[in-house]
């Protein structure tokens, strides 16, 4: 397990950079990780991250489809917000474990 400092907070992360403990997350931390990924966060980004954190807190699996149905963004929009592999990037920025949506 490694430690990384984001916005003055020491965070436990795994070797791929996902949080070990989602309580160590806050908005400033997210902004710092976003910067590392050349992203500027908007309200929409935060809305998506809040949605993901709520789902995980309820023990529910994360899918791109569920984000498309969340009423926050459609799937295309989700790709625009978090380019590349959006679910992985968004969960990382939201301070969550890597999504194992399919096991």
């Amino acid at each position, binding site marked *: 397990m490694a430690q990384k400092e984001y916005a003055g907070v020491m965070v436990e992360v795994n070797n791929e950079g996902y949080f070990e403990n989602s309580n160590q997350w806050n908005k400033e931390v997210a902004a710092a990780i976003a910067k590392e990924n050349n992203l500027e966060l908007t309200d929409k980004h935060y809305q998506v991250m809040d949605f993901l954190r709520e789902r995980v807190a309820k*023990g*529910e*699996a994360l*899918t*791109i*489809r*569920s984000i498309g*149905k969340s009423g926050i963004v459609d*799937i*295309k929009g989700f*790709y625009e917000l978090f*380019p*590349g*592999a959006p679910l*992985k990037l968004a969960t990382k920025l939201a301070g969550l474990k890597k999504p*194992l*949506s*399919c*096991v």
Partner: protein
Amino acid sequence: MKRFVILGAGTAGTMMANKMDKYLDKSEWEIVVLDRNNTHYYQPGFLFIPFGMYKAKDVVKKKSAYLPKRVNFIVADIGKIDADRNTIIYGDGKELVYDILIVATGTVPSPSETPGYLGDRWYKNIFDFYTFEGAVALSEHFESFKGGKLVVTITELPYKCPIAPLEFVFLADAFFTKKGIRDKVELFFTTPMSGAFTKPIATKMLGALLEEKRINVVTDFYVEGVDEAKNVIRSYDGREVEFDTLVVVPVNLGDELIASSGLGDDMNYVVVDKETLQSTIKPNVFAIGDAANLPTSKAGSVAHFASEVLFENLKAYIAGQPLAHKFDGHANCFIETGFGKATLIDFDYTHEPYPGEYPVAGIGPMTLLGVTRINHWGKLAFKPIYWEFLLKDRKMPVSNRFSMTGKRV
């Protein structure tokens, strides 16, 4: 008279009916099972049909033949569960009141969710193998298949039997090799995951097998739809994969009736406690098998292991005691790798698949994460075991709980 109702007479519903039949007093309880048809498919057999290894008769039987005599089996489409009134609404508005309900309606491939799947090309050069019809249509297609780009695509997570698409490409590699046309077939595997499987050790092992068998893997590929004019599938990030024949694992969804009952999540899976299998919304409702929103594989083996836990918890529930039995998410899957061999994985909610022996430490006879002939025989033996032991709830020599004995970390 109290009424115990099971929705769905597939793998999980049939197992539970047989268990409850032995337990529930006939003078106190009526058992009712509802299903929309009387055809029981052995779904794992669908994998073998396209390659001519199984025929229709291997996978099709009557549901009623596997249900206990005392069960009142009703063939009808269930339209709605009114959980507030403990009532099932089916057929032409008929109603059935229950005391306890098990939802075992499984999950269904829904190709209509993806633009282009169900167009003119469906069952011409776009197929699924998750349905009996799809598997049969594909077997006919392969009879005249002379070569080209064969693309296997996972559309969305979760879907049932997570390794079936991998087995499909492994078997396709062997099938075309035996036909002498492997050099004319380019095999592609696209997945929304970032590797062959979700758990790291198994992903590494399966990834190496894919490479060895010259199967091109396209990861993080999230299908937006098919461009029928160009014969390509396109992902949301704009990448395209060209195909001559496309084999899709469509979006899988729980049945519509779960959506209307207010008991489900946004993919129509019944929201249950992942350890007790009890609905988190209504205590007299339970779900098992693919219909439940458990964070483990949607597989027959999971339904089997979970059935033992659910049975104990139902006994406790009826007796007014706390639900003390906890399901650990145990899953166990044979993975056909072609040429008469297979591998095997065994895991649960917290442990990923490790190498080792199964079910007996140091002895096996199965080898976890190894590719062996005995594993393949294990997979083939599963068909008679399924029909004769599993569905009928006869004792089997495997534990329902995951165990670390025999595993090497």
